[in-house]
């Protein structure tokens, strides 16, 4: 009887070890091969082309997918073939769309008027507009005046208390910097939205065609000290992405140049990920008058 009882710990231990069964994750690849996709029971060619057309045709395939603990099957025509696609959406702060904001929550902002705003619009919420402004962007999912609801805000999470807090629409390619003055830093925002089926992620780069300059090619100088200051005759930008590896747009007001510079990045697949760039302009006393122009290109680059 005593021996039987003494066996209990040993049996328990063996039972524990018995659970240590092999856990095989089968994959259709080895060090030497990979089967991307294959067709079974099909003859002839599924592509054809001439100088003026290209056709990828199919007939009679059944699309579907099934799986168990040890395998995964995607069936159908070219089920295993797809090219990485990146969708890139860039919009500028529409100055004429400004409405005052009185309060905000994680996904809503209360405004003085919702006229001109529609579901699907991208909006920019700014607290204390000016050189030290804090902003966030979102995409409108519903409007129940005076409350605008967005899918999610991305940004620094500004505190909206109704004092110099504004909401703008992000729309189109023309960026209105407004009337520049030597007594303030003028700001304007460029926002973007990326959906990319690229597992390694992506980066967004900014590049200019030339300095911000008037018709006589008189420029407002690029910021060089990390801060665009009132009356200093400086122009620069700072990104909402605070973890950039290869530029200073994450930590300081930085000059935009004719070389591609990183302003945002992600390291995995992205669905509607958003960032924005805040441009800051502070003309110097005696700055030549006129309309200042520049083309800024935001370039999506998928990681490799």
């Amino acid at each position, binding site marked *: *009887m*005593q021996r039987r*009882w*003494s066996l209990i*710990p040993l049996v*328990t*231990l063996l039972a*524990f*070890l018995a*659970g*240590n069964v*092999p*856990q*095989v*994750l*089968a*994959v259709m*690849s*080895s*060090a*030497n091969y*990979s089967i991307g996709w294959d067709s079974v029971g099909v003859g002839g060619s599924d592509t054809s082309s001439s100088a003026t057309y290209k056709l990828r045709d199919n007939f009679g395939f059944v699309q579907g997918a099934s799986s168990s603990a040890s395998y995964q099957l995607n069936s159908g025509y070219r089920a295993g073939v797809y*090219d*990485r*696609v990146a969708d*890139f*959406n*860039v*919009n*500028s702060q*529409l100055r*004429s769309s400004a409405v005052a904001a009185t309060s905000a929550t994680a996904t809503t902002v209360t405004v003085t008027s919702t006229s*001109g705003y529609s579901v699907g619009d991208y909006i920019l919420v700014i607290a204390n507009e000016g050189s030290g402004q804090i902003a966030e962007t979102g995409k409108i999912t519903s409007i129940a005046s005076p409350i605008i609801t967005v899918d999610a805000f991305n940004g620094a999470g500004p505190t909206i208390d109704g004092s110099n807090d504004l909401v703008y629409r992000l*729309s189109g*390619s*023309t*960026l*209105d*910097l407004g009337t520049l003055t030597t007594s303030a830093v003028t700001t304007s925002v*460029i926002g*973007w939205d990326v959906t*990319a089926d*690229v597992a390694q992620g992506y980066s967004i780069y900014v590049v200019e*065609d030339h300095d*911000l300059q008037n018709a006589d090619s008189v420029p407002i100088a690029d910021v060089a000290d990390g801060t665009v200051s009132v009356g200093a005759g400086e122009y620069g930008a700072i990104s909402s992405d605070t973890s950039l*590896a*290869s530029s200073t747009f994450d930590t300081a007001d930085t000059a935009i140049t004719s*070389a*591609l510079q990183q302003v945002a990045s992600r390291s995995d697949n992205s669905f509607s990920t958003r960032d924005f760039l805040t441009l800051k302009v502070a003309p110097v006393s005696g700055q030549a008058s006129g*309309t200042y*122009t*520049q*083309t*800024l*290109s*935001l*370039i*999506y680059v*998928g990681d*490799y």
Partner: protein
Amino acid sequence: MSATTSLRRLLLVITALLFFVLPNYVQAISFTPTATDISLMPGDTLTKTFTLTNNSTVAKNYQTSLNLVHFDSVTHEPIFDTWPASLNSSVTVDTQTFTLDPNQQKTVTLTVTPPTNTTASSLVIGLIVAEVASSASVQVTPGVSSLVFVTIGQPSVLPVITSFSSSSFASSSLPIDFTGNIINNGDRTLQPFGTITVYNVFSKRVATFDMNPTLRRIPSAQNRAFTATWGATRVTGNFFQELWREVTNPMIGFFTAELLAAPYPGADATLSQTTHVVVLPWRALIIIIGLGIVTTVSVRRRRSRR
């Protein structure tokens, strides 16, 4: 009322009207593929096609451009250099500028024809398609790029595994991360392709997983770390949560992990390295041993009573 004041009011009214009258327009594009490879011999010609779609609600003009690309050794970010005129006859794009209506697509074809006397080498081309600004003011335009990794001939392939290790030598349960560092000392862009296989002390295979499932590339003179996880990733819990984990997902013993990979798809698997880990579910073992002691003591007490 002065003429200036009247003009200012008129401008304000026009601006306000424009906000309500003009439809909100989306400025968007999509592009595919975002990275691709070309491998050819000197004198041969290969083409790659790329598809751009205008997802904006209005027609847009676009312009293509080429850049030579190299990579920052620390951040690994691509750096777009000026396109050298010496490559103009070897690499061409079939279109420079074009216009797309909303939702219209355009196929851009890149043709690569290295001269017959080109030495075996590799280069990276940055194809950029960017929207052309429509008017003179401050304009913001989107653009997209595809990195084209070109291999000409058979350049040297010299990958070196500088390290292969687990996140910790001893763990109480899964998951365990295995990280392999590979440096590309050759001239060919690498795309390590292989598996990490875990064997138990009886040399029986326990798990196999891809070491680079997304086929990340390693440009020449660059190094990359590839991490694969054995077991499902999770957040570390308290003592009892970890104990439950050890009991419901039992794993114990000494294991050997073997990294076996080819430097790029289609090449022989020449990259090999092993490392070892110990999985010791100490919480579960303490409980089991404790139960054993309690059981033994109680049995002895019963026996002594008899």
